Structures are given as C-alpha cells and as structure tokens.
C-alpha cells in the first residue's frame, strides 16, 4: 500500500548555511539510502522554500495568481516521500526516521486507490 509522507518544517529546522545544515543533509542521504535498499521507495523530493511559492486559483473561469503559499502557517510544506509499506505501522516507523520529524512534523497519508 502506498503512503505519502508529507514533510513540514518549522523555524527551528536547520537552514542552508547554518552549522547543522551539512549534518542534516547527510541524515537525509542516509534515510533515502535506507528506503531504497529496503525496496519501499517510490519517489521523494525536497522543495525550494515557500518564498518561491506561487498560488493559483481559478474562479468563474478566471485565473488569479498570488505570491506565496496557499496557507500562511508556522509549519511549511517542504518535501515528501512516497513509500510502499505493508501497513500504517511500517509507514509510521519510516516517518519517525525522517530528519525533519525532530523539528517540524511528518504527516502520513495513504494514497487513494480508484478501482
């Protein structure tokens, strides 16, 4: 079963250029290696910071484009992993290992299957 692990960072997460940053990236490298080696990895990406975000809405056939993320919250969506796990417990175990879980949060969502 596929689970999307949505990664949210907050302002305590290490930033590029900070002394913790290198170690943080390394931890991500280790995690990605692990999920690949275990054969559960389907996809995963990190996103550029929310300052680069653009939000698009179409109302009455008209598109409106605004600067910034969809929702202004303390925690910002920063990336994801798409994993193939046998059940929620396995997905939770991987979520706990994602380096950002120590700072922000990881939301685990099962992927919808249309049959």
């Amino acid at each position, binding site marked *: 079963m596929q689970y999307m692990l949505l990664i949210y960072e907050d302002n305590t997460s290490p930033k590029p250029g900070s002394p913790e940053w290198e170690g943080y990236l390394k931890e991500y490298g280790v995690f990605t290696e692990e999920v690949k080696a275990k054969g559960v990895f389907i996809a995963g990406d990190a996103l550029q910071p929310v300052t680069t975000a653009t939000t698009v809405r179409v109302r009455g056939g008209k598109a409106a484009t605004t600067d910034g993320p969809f929702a202004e919250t303390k925690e910002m969506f920063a990336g994801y992993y798409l994993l193939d796990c046998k059940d929620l*417990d396995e997905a939770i175990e991987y979520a706990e290992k994602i380096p950002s879980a120590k700072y922000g949060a990881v939301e685990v969502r099962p992927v919808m299957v249309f049959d």
Partner: protein
Amino acid sequence: MRNEWGRVLAALINVLGDFDKAEDALQDAVVAALKDWAAQGIPDNPRAWLLQVARRKAIDRFRREQIFETRRTDLEQLYQPEQLDAEQVMGDGIPDERLRLIFTCCHPALSEQAQVALTLRTLGGLTTTELARAYLIPEVTMAQRIVRAKRKIKAANIPYRVPPPERLTERVGSVLSVIYLIFNEGYAASSGQDLTRIALSGEAIRLGEMLHALMPREPEVAGLLALMLLHDSRKPARIDEDGNFVALEKQQRGLWNYEQIKAGLHLLEKAGPIEQAGPYQLQAAISAVHAQAADYQDTDWHRIILLYDQLYAIQPSPVVKLNAVVALSMVQGPASALEVLERVEAEGKLDRYQPFHVVKANLLKSVGQKQAAAEAYRLALSITHNRVERDFLQHCLKELEGCSK
C-alpha cells in the same frame, strides 16, 4: 451473549479482515441465536455456535451481494477455519484474538475518543445507543465517531496484530490509558440518573481482567487492574443513603468491598518489586495503603509521601504534586502543606482543576482562614457540574459559614 461478543468478533475480524463485515455477520448470528436458543436451549458451546453461524451468515451476505466470483479468496478463507473448528471445540475452544483487536482499537493513530468508543463497542459489546447514553452525546454523533474510526482503520491500513516487542511497552501504555479513561468516566459519575455511566467502571474492570489474562506478565497491566479494583472497592462507601458524596476521611470502612481489596493487593504484589514500578503500579500501591489502614488518621502517610515522590519522578505532573500535598498535610500539618500548595499554584496549571481548589479550601479551613477557604470552595463550585459533588461542596461551604458565626 455479551460475554461472547468480543471473543467471537475478534476471531471473525481475523478471518474476514474487515471490521464491518465481521460485525454484520455477528449481528446476524445474534439475531439467529435469540430465536434458536429460545426454542432449543443454549448450545453446549455458544461461542463455537456463534462463530459457525456468523461465518455462514457472512457467506450468505457475500452471495447476496453477488461478488461470489470476485471474492473467491475471501470465501476460501471462510471455509478453511470451519474444518479446524471440530478440533478446536474438542480442545479449548477458539483461539483468542482479542489482544489483536484491542491493540487495533487503541492504535495511537486514532483519536482518544474513537479509541474509547471502538473498544467499548467491539470488545465490550456495548451498543451505539448504550455508548451514546454513557457519554452523554447524541446517538448520531457516537455512530459517526465509530464509523469514522473503522473507516480509518481500513483506509490507512492500521494492522490487526499485537505490536512487535520493541513497540509493545509504548502501545500497551496506549491500551491502558483507554481502559483507565473508561474507568474514570464511570467512577466520576455517581448519581441515580448516571447509572449507565457507572456501568462503565465495571466495563473497564472487565477489560482490565481480560488484558491481564492475556498478558499476565506485564506489570503495568496488573498494576492498572489492581488500581481499578482498589478504587472500586470504596464505591459502596462513597455515597450515603441520601445520595451524598462522602470523602475518604469520613467513609465507613466497613462498607468497603474487601473481596476487591484482597484481589487488588494480590495483583499488586504479583506485579513485581515497587522499586521498578510504573505509574499504575505506584498509584495502586498508594490506594493499597489507604485500603489497609484502619482509619484516616491511622494511614501510613509517610509511605504515601514516598510513593508520590517516586511517582512524581517518572510522571512530573502538578496533579501528582497536589495529591502529595494532602499526604504532607497529614504528616507536617496544614501550614507547611499550604506553602507547597502555593508553589504548585504559582505554576498556574491547575487553575481550572476542581480538586485543586477543594484541597486549598480544606487546608485554609484547617489553619483558620475561613474567608479565603470560602472563596476557594466557591471557585471549586463554579467549575463543578456533577450534582453529587456540587451538593457536597455546598455542604462544606455552609458548614464553614456556620462555624464562623
């Protein structure tokens, strides 16, 4: 029949891999049983009877829904255990799957309310109507809560299994807190119109006994069961003939249920050394000190203080400290207890916690600060909704005003 509900349901979920299908099938079987058993008497092995009939009913449902072809594997699963049945009935009945069921119902991915509702519905066999009445919410709300929880179990694929050893302690903790929550809901309720809620503490004890039978070596499981039995043993003395609440200090100890006390003490002893005890064992140990005291004055308050210190070390909550303050006042007097209480108050976490204001009022009264005591009683009253407790506090207040004249 309710005794068998949880056992049979747990076995059915295991076979069918689906909460709803299992429940529908069992419901059908119960309806059949009511008719059949009335006419022919209760079968020798009602559990096996229910399981067999439920399985047949599940097959009927599959056929009715015309998914015979697509769900072939389901049907094969259904037939297989039937062959096992004969031997199992000869032996010791049906494998007990209730542990899997309770771990799934109390999975931390479900909300606490959902965990409680689902546990009482599936393992306790309470109907949605009974649950709604016990938790004082509309039946629709309760039904929705259960439906949503079951939907999440299915959609998110919460596993139906006992967690692996490295997760067990954490997950047992989650199960224990659900059971204790149910117990307290019933224990706090105390008046006639609350009868359905009082029954909840009995349900919690039953669940605790079940869990202890299934996990006899988990010290905290034994600890929680001991704690519930020791608390529950005082129930006959907590309310007088007029329905008024009676504080521990004034309880007629002869009314306590000494069978329950004996069972609680025995469990506590079996659970293991107190030095390594978890929070439930420690709370049970404190309750045990009360249970063994001839009267309130005679209680071993020194031991209670030590136990609270030990509890605070692993569970540093202001509520634990508040309870320790009561014991402290018995050993060192109300004045030094008030000093500690002021420090607890300064943390500001118990402003809306009714027992805090009651303890404060009692201590202030003991040192002769009647006006401040009355104020604390009034504050406590303003956040108390339980009728029996309100009556009790009003009585305290009247007594105080009476002696100030």
